[in-house]
């Protein structure tokens, strides 16, 4: 099990993470799913700054359930990554170091990952209650009106994943999505 501290210091760190490697993630990540991605891209188009600096950061594709009173986090498992495919290359170009979700990615995303020497990790889909125990803190930081689709800042410890696409563009899924 390789340890990954996020955000990373620089992209060179990611060269050690090869497709199929099991990874234990600790540090701070941000969540974003469909609507947050749409807003990121609108901001980029309108030459406005993003609510978070994506450089060397990791985005986790999830929309958590609300936490019960007194608890840190509700259920927080990965959502399907390919829905974010249309937006990901632009974010990688801004320095985004990696994404975490579930499922295959399209060809354009793989190309962009290779180009910016980023990585794509997958965690266990549908293990949302278990994964909630890896969350040390959670707070809404942007697009608060979007409810579960808001951007949350998440502190994780020993969050499990595997490298699905490494910085060389090698994928654990032999056939990529052709959609």
């Amino acid at each position: 099990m390789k340890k990954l501290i996020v955000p990373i210091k620089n992209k060179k760190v990611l060269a050690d993470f090869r497709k199929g490697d099991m990874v234990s993630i600790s540090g701070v990540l941000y969540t974003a799913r469909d609507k947050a991605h749409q807003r990121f891209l609108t901001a980029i188009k309108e030459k406005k700054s993003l609510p978070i600096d994506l450089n060397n950061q990791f985005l986790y594709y999830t929309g958590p359930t609300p936490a019960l009173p007194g608890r840190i986090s509700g259920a927080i498992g990965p959502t399907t990554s390919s829905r974010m495919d249309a937006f990901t290359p632009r974010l990688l170009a801004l320095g985004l170091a990696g994404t975490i979700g579930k499922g295959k990615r399209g060809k354009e995303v793989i190309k962009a990952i290779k180009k910016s020497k980023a990585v794509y990790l997958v965690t266990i889909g549908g293990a949302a209650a278990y994964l909630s125990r890896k969350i040390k803190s959670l707070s809404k930081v942007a697009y608060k009106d979007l409810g579960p689709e808001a951007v949350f800042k998440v502190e994780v410890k020993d969050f499990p994943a595997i490298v699905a696409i490494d910085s060389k563009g090698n994928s654990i899924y032999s056939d990529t999505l052709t959609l």
Partner: protein
Amino acid sequence: MRKIKVDKITEKVKDLVFEANFNLPQPVKALLQNAQRKASGREKWVLGKILENASVARKKKIPLCQDTGLPIIFLEIGQEIELTNGSIEEAVWQGVKAGYRDGCLRRSVVLNPLERGKTDFVPSPIHQKVIPGDKLKIVLLVKGFGSENVSHTVMLNPTSSLSDIEGEVVNLVKEKGVNACPPLFIGLGIGGTLEEAVLTSKTILIRRLGKVSRERNIKHLEKSILASVNKLGIGAGAWGGRFTALAVKAGLLPTHIAGLPLAVNLSCHSLRWAKTEI
């Protein structure tokens, strides 16, 4: 006529929301445990985490998945019942709303599919059927959209063979099963009309999980598809392995001479439902 106040439905639906979101049904857990015993290496670890997920959900009242679905409600209403005190649909939605609100579950519904906009707990789909007798049966199925998005319907030619059907299912799993949170439960609706096939592909998993079909053709088809799907190597959690699916259940329906509808309902490993009777 037996009189039932619809408030009773609200109360029961609320209980079912909790039951389905926090407790993995026993036949599902049994199949996962059986796979975990037989699996090795990383796949054994992933299956262990999926089982741990179920235990955390039950003990800590955290939903099994952050995608708390659209809850789909199936009502079977005895024809000797008179429902009083309001609308049945409203009563169901009140129960859903109360359960999702009090259980801290997710608002995943958008009222307008094109404009999207604000999210809510309801409305949820309701399927009603009138049956003989004076009992009212309620089933609540929670389906996340990771697996709903990759489910599929195709209208085959009436001359299609069993191996054509198998090919459709295996190709679908090969192409998109990774996104549906394997190990999968695969429900098939074969025959009928478009909507009947789809409904059957969902209800058959609830009706027949853990039960072997008495019809030889169906038994053979289910076994054969399960074996082929598990040769794809996708594995539990799509992390690689031999447990891509845990069960295949097929429901046959009378159909038109010109067609053979096939609906393939892919369900994630946390096939969640609860039922009750009034």
